């Protein structure tokens, strides 16, 4: 009786039954592409790990020129288990972005962005950009030689955009050059601005998914037979938990075996170290910029490259509106573009490592 009363008491005030009823009724289509559905929750798993380990690192990290590198060294060498917490944060970031890419490829190939899911796609594109911004801002925080150089290069890239570019660079750097102000800005973005928008957009993204239900891939849908379904709670969640456990195990293992290094403290006056490379998920962009010649038809090569990249990002964001065919159409051409983009990214990434 007491238990029931507490349940009712809470429900009267919070309306929890609405959620539990929804979860009981939610179904997940069962077909041979069902494993793609796990990619979204895998992102959430790594995001949660980022939030928790991020809070923990915040207890010791000090975002100043004098102390940034030293405080990370302190986390690595003195704080109990600090090295593994930083290692998990660093690896989980990579795992999360890898899952974001896989999630994206699945949705692209399945054409899950088509009507009525255009807004789900758009919110996902913004979340992708936020994820990359998380990676870019977080990379500077240890304030070692590599992170300083990568940030100098990265924040200099917008400068080539005509008219507005220089202001973007100044906005990112907090002035003409990378200084303490840049570190403060990146720290603020990384721990405050980006998280707020990430939470907001994740909430929207998940809401859209619940509103429209799970998308079924085109090739299953055109068979015109209703696919089998699995109750979301608890059947599908239990399966997801198995996936989470496996991913968590892999994450902890690589974090223990391959902790990230911490380079020499950055010196604003020192020459750039050799062989600077951005994080792996920026390599294809890095290489793209590298292969453009200095001048193309009298225009700066970099300007051309960046404008092309911006156009590509815009087209990518507008994909649901460009490919607005009815859901039954296979969209072989769109798939072909997806495969070409994957090939291009892989090829450029490998090339940049050679």
């Amino acid at each position, binding site marked *: 009786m007491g238990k029931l009363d507490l349940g009712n008491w809470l429900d009267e005030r919070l309306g929890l039954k609405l959620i539990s009823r929804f979860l009981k009724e939610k179904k997940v289509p069962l077909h041979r592409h069902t494993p793609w559905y796990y990619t979204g929750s895998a992102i959430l798993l790594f995001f949660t790990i980022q939030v928790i380990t991020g809070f*923990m690192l915040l*207890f010791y990290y000090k975002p100043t020129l004098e102390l940034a590198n030293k405080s990370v060294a302190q986390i690595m060498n*003195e*704080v*109990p*288990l*600090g090295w*593994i*917490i930083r290692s998990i944060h660093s690896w989980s970031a990579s795992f999360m972005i890898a899952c974001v890419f896989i999630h994206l490829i699945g949705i692209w190939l399945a054409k899950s962005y088509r009507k009525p899911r255009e807004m789900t796609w758009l919110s996902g594109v913004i979340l992708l950009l936020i994820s990359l911004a998380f990676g870019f801002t977080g990379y500077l925080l240890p304030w070692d030689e590599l992170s300083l150089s990568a940030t100098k290069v990265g924040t200099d890239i917008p400068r080539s955009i005509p008219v507005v570019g220089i202001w973007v660079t100044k906005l990112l750097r907090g002035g003409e050059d990378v200084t303490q102000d840049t570190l403060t800005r990146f720290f603020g973005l990384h721990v405050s601005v980006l998280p707020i928008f990430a939470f907001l957009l994740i909430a929207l993204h998940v809401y859209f998914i619940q509103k429209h239900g799970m998308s079924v891939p085109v090739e299953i849908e055109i068979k015109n037979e209703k696919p089998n379904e699995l109750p979301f709670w608890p059947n599908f969640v239990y399966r997801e938990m198995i996936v989470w456990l496996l991913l968590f195990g892999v994450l902890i293992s690589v974090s223990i075996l391959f902790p990230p290094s911490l380079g020499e403290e950055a010196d604003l006056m020192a020459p750039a170290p050799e062989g600077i490379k951005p994080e792996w998920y920026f390599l294809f962009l890095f290489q793209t910029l590298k292969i453009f010649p200095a001048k193309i038809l009298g225009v700066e090569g970099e300007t051309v490259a960046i404008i092309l990249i911006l156009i590509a990002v815009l087209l990518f964001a507008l994909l649901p509106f460009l490919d607005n065919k009815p859901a039954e159409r296979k969209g072989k051409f769109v798939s072909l573009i997806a495969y070409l983009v994957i090939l291009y990214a892989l090829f450029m990434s490998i090339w940049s490592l050679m």
Partner: protein
Amino acid sequence: MKLKHSLFTRRQFLNGLLGGWLAAFFGSLIHPVLKFIFPPYREPEEVVLNYSEFEGMSPNSVKYFSWGSKPGIVQRKEDGSFQVFVGVCTHLDCNVTYLPEQKKFFCACHEGWYDENGMNIGGPPPAPLRRLEMFIEGENLIIKREGGK
């Protein structure tokens, strides 16, 4: 004794197993997190000071030094002998000050009083000031935890 009926159903057993396993899993995660959040307090084994800075102290005066992250107090008594304290009130951790006119240590936070030997004599402090040991070795004044030679 053999029971005719099982005390719980197969479902209850499996749910308990899963729930218990989840609880154990998250429990095992809490330990490293707590370990990270609460770093051990590292009190210095010893602090080595330059004796020449303390040699000339006038009687009934004190000099401060850093005992880790707390203030340490070297006190020279009227008779010329030295005493060393951790200069932190035993009530609620405020730093104490020495009042030479009254020959007392005073904590301003809650008006705690200690006599010149660090004994708590007035106000809320529950215990005497913590003492440290000092040794003079040539040029050096070495300060150690009490009993830690």
